[in-house]
């Protein structure tokens, strides 16, 4: 017979389970529930014994998907959409392949050290030939990942080679940091360099090649770049090999000067080999580790023909990109598209049913989606969401095209829109803060006759800057707001043409600064003549965790608090009032473009003490007096995407 006390405890348990599950909807933009009304995520059921850490996906001519995994296996999946798909192991023993392609009856995969062709000659469903097409040297550094192959129309293949890691990115063996082309006979041609972690690449309908890059040393934020032979795309390590036979560029490592204060776009005016990105993905706001690219060749997935879907491993999301060419150069805008995938999104591929197969893995890096690996399908229910379909640069602003007609009043009111622009610094440091952030004034809006387009007239546009375009006030004529009301447009060029101007431009420079706050005391107070009462040291562990999930301190005692970050990502630690951890993490995310500069510390009374935002391989020491009131005071890393697992409790006794 349940007594009342037991009943109440059961209720509390139930409530906390519900709370936990709702925080497990892997929210990044908070739009998952709305997105689900148009695009549903369906799990492909994977047998428990198969560790399907997806590295690549390819469909054969019968529409059967094959998946290569980081454990070196290739699995063919029959009836993937059924309750009991059949998994057949086609090949195994490959060295962490991170890309798979299928052509004319054979599979091609890029292993760490080799491009391999696999064929099943006797038709028993298992590969019996593993042919080495081309292999390259490795420096036995785990960070030397290799990607591809992507087939060119003429049958050659494109591969990209990640840099090694020695506490910083380094090109430790030949061609690391390069995109290379390999013929089916194994002839290799180096194409371009400057790459750091080129996790995704593809060709568009015009045959132009794009690759995605990850924030890191020399790379201010995630981005996508149009690659052509002879390009240098930013990280100078690969230039070590530019003198090798076949190299299409003679730019040398020593030619790149560090920390001049330029953005990559500005430095490209000085060094002609530099190809700046076509689309930047602002870090923390549009993912943290850009991955696979998928082109929407037609309107199979909404009114988005010729646009791209881009995965993000760290945030478990997919973004959408529209690009155009202005003065011969690619540029475009990224929008949020779908959040809530169950693990780190690495690969995207079209299924025969026009659903998007999403291959995932997060071992070693963690991700918002808490599963270690997975395979899901994103399915469109043919309902068109109310979205900004495209944004095009104009001589005097931007033209927004919507998927549905907008309300005349709301859509035509400049107050419905907000534009801010900023850039990133080009330097050897890991990532870059949002730099030179300014707001741009929308001084007029003109709607097209069908209300599907809004032309924004904006003053003071700056080329080479990333424009945050917000349309929060816009509704359709049913009064509904946009599913996603913001995007980031990389303005490489402004098109020629007649331009309207404002009489006076109202520049509002609004830059955040990280002031030395009372919540972050870095020097031991002089009054602590006997030193601290207690030293607490938290060490960041690989996979987004602190080493200690709990520390105990005495109420009112003097604490020397050390945060040690030997990891290769940025981290901080905030100590907050009991019960406020999720609110503070959310507030940190909402700092938006200013977040990094503010060390992701929101201006909130819930934050009691905090460290700085630590670069890889560094530590911070702060001093504070533990609260007088005993209780459980959580600590958390508020870098976007980290708060779910990087947390613990400071028990004040």
């Amino acid at each position, binding site marked *: 017979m349940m007594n009342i006390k037991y009943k109440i405890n059961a209720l509390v348990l139930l409530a906390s389970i519900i709370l936990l599950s709702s925080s497990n909807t892997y929210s990044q933009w908070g739009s998952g529930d709305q997105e689900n009304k148009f695009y549903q995520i369906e799990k492909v059921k994977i047998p428990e014994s198969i560790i399907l850490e997806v590295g690549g996906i390819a469909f054969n001519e019968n529409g059967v998907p094959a998946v290569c995994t980081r454990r070196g296996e290739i699995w063919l999946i029959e009836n993937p959409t059924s309750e009991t798909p059949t998994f057949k192991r086609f090949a195994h023993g490959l*060295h962490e392949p991170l890309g798979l392609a299928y052509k004319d009856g054979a599979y091609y995969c890029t292993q760490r050290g080799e491009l391999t062709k696999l064929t099943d000659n006797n038709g028993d469903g*298992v590969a019996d030939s*593993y042919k*080495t097409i081309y292999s390259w040297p490795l*420096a036995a550094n785990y960070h030397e990942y290799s990607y591809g192959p992507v087939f060119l129309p003429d049958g050659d293949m494109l591969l990209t080679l990640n840099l090694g890691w020695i506490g910083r990115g*380094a090109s430790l063996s030949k061609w690391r940091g390069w995109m290379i082309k390999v013929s089916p006979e194994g002839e290799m041609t180096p194409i371009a360099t400057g790459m750091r972690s080129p996790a995704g690449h593809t060709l568009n309908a015009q045959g132009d090649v794009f690759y995605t890059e990850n924030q890191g040393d020399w790379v201010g934020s995630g981005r996508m770049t149009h690659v052509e032979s002879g390009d240098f795309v930013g990280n100078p390590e690969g230039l070590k090999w530019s003198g090798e036979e076949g190299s299409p560029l003679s730019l040398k490592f020593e030619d790149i000067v560090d920390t001049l204060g330029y953005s990559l776009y500005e430095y490209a005016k000085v060094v002609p080999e530099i190809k700046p990105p076509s689309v930047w993905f602002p870090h923390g706001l549009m993912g943290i580790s850009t991955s696979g690219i998928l082109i929407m060749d037609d309107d199979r997935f909404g009114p988005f023909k010729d646009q791209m879907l881009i995965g993000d491993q760290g945030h478990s999301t997919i973004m959408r990109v529209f690009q155009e060419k202005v003065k011969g150069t690619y540029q475009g805008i990224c929008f949020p598209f779908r959040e809530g995938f169950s693990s780190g999104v690495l690969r995207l591929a079209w299924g025969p049913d026009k659903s998007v197969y999403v291959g995932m893995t997060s071992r070693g890096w963690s991700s918002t989606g808490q599963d270690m690996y997975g395979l899901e399908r994103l399915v469109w229910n043919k309902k068109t969401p109310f979205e900004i379909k495209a944004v095009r640069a104009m001589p005097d602003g931007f033209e927004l095209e919507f998927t549905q007609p907008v309300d005349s009043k709301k859509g035509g009111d400049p107050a419905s829109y907000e534009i801010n622009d900023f850039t990133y610094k080009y330097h050897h*440091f890991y990532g870059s803060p949002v730099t030179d952030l300014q707001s741009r004034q929308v001084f007029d809006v003109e709607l097209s006759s069908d209300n599907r387009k809004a032309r924004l007239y904006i003053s003071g546009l700056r080329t080479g800057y990333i424009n945050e375009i917000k349309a929060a006030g816009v509704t359709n004529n049913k009064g509904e707001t946009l599913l996603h009301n913001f995007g980031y447009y990389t303005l490489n060029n402004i098109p020629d043409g007649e331009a309207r101007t404002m009489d006076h431009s109202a520049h509002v420079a609004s830059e955040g600064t990280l002031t030395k706050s009372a919540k972050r005391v870095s020097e031991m107070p002089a009054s602590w003549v006997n030193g601290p009462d207690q030293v607490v040291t938290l060490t*960041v562990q690989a996979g987004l965790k602190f080493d200690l999930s709990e520390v105990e301190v005495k109420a009112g005692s003097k604490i020397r608090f050390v945060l040690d970050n030997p990891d290769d990502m940025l981290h901080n630690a905030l100590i907050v009032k009991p019960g406020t951890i999720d609110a503070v993490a959310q507030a940190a995310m909402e700092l938006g473009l200013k977040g990094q500069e503010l060390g992701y510390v929101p201006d909130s009374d819930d934050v009691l003490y905090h460290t700085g935002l630590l670069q890889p391989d560094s530590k911070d020491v702060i001093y504070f007096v533990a609260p007088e009131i005993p209780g459980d005071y959580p600590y958390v890393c508020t870098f976007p995407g980290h708060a779910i697992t990087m947390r613990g409790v400071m028990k004040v006794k």
Partner: protein
Amino acid sequence: MLLFTRCNTTPKPVEEEVPPVTLPMKMLSMDNLNDFRSSGENWQLAGDALAGLEDESPLQPLEGRGVIVNVPTETAREHLFTKFEHGDIELEVEFLMPKNSNSGIYFQGRYEIQLFDSWNVKNPKHADCGGIYQRWDESKPDGEKGYEGHPPQVNASKAPGLWQNFRISFRAPRFDDSGNKTENARFESVYHNGFLIHENVELTGPTRSSAFEDEQPQGPLMIQGDHGPVAIRNIRYKTYTQDSLHLSGLQYAMYDGNWTTMPNLLGLEAIKTGTSDVLEASPDPDKKDHYALEYTGTLHVPVEGTYLFETHIDDGGELFIDDQLVVFNDGDPGWGLERGLIKLKAGAHPFKMTYFQDVWGATLEVYYEGPGISRKALAAVKRKSVSGNRPAPLMIDSLTAPEMIRSFAEYGDGPTKTHVISVGDPAGVHYTYNLHNGALLKVWRGTFADVTGMWVNRGGSQLLRPGNAALETTDGPQVAKLENAEAPWPDSLSTAFKYEGYEVNSDERPVFLYTYEGVSFADLTQPTKDGLFTTRIITATTKNPVSNLWFRIAKANKIDVLGDGTYRIGGQYYLSLSNEEAAIVREGKELLIPIASAENISTIQYTLIW
């Protein structure tokens, strides 16, 4: 790695040659028995030893020096004791067991590691080779007299007549001033043929047949002589006291500046000073980049002798003792490991450590080893690694079909091999193969693979490690064109060699394919029918006759020709070669076979037995 050629204002360090990784071990003489107490006639000197695989095969000493051999008889069956006595000790020893033989190594004459012929024993006991022998209480009833024996974690034994090795770290019991024991003796680690078989095993007292009834801080090493024949060579050891170095009065001065090599700090003004009890790279958490440090203090040396210092530094730094530069770590390209030797007298010595940090990682760690002083860290910061505790090992075993895994692999003392494949077999015999040059690198029996380094977290090492003691075979180019039978074998791969990939045959095993100037090779390695050993079959196919094309089967410091196509390679394994008539052994070190010139298809086949 060491760059003493840097030309700037820094003085050259004390020692000119490349310092060793560890201080040298002492070696017992094997040319005579002078390092041992007087022994019985059962102990003799030899140059090498052989022993057959059949029952009753005797131990055959070969002429020469360098090996001590025990052949006990009815009248001569004494144990062998070293003249030196030891407390804590690190020991390496090689031994060779004839069929069914039995001996033992007694640390301090009291604690036995069993030597036994345990070839092909599936479930080893304490009395098998490498076991920590049991203790014995005569007063207990029959069946309960033996206790606390520890079997080896795996049976890493080789066949009779092959040289095996132990690497053992032993910690002696501790006593207080009154002579009461305060800590038990321990085998900290025992490696049999390179594989860990014991870790931290405590011994409550002497094991059975100990030469002494009591326990003491010191005792001689003993090799059992009354149970059976055995050959021993290369006894190397380091004995340790409980001494250590320590630093006192450590102070630091910090300087601001933008350097990419070690700066000259003379005349610069410090931006910060302080005292410290540790050597650390970042004494000021607010200053992360662009600074230098100078630590000064007093180093207290307990005993005179040669000290080896090892620094792990990012970006660069110098270690000075008595104003002499001992270790120079130049800061290029970031993290570097350098060593230096210095002879020091006992007492206090001025100590100085300079350091500079450019950007990114900052590391400053100093390790040392001294005369009778085991390797330790000097004034180190206590720090947890990113990965925290050692992850649980991830093993692959119990195969139902051959399994292939490409990975990185260790081989000898050389650099990590990056293009290798390991093939595990349900028969329990496995190998690693070099895809770069077609060489068979290792073979082993037992558990297939330890893939912890590959699939746990990011897989930082990407190493596949054998699941048991592995036998390393010969790396290097497999095929070469030789002008004549005496021409030297090439060190590097010819451009005429092209590795093409592999095909998987109907037994699900890979057949490696490569070509050399128009000759196509198919290279298959598979278990023998009894599942105990490994056979390699290389088929060479050519349209036109080839001449002067050779295959190198093995290279070692010594190859014994045993007859009937059987060889003992480097004393480490047996090789049984089919069609051995055309094979040649060059200078007792290389086994080559010509690739048949007249036929279109020729086969080379050999079996490895170990």
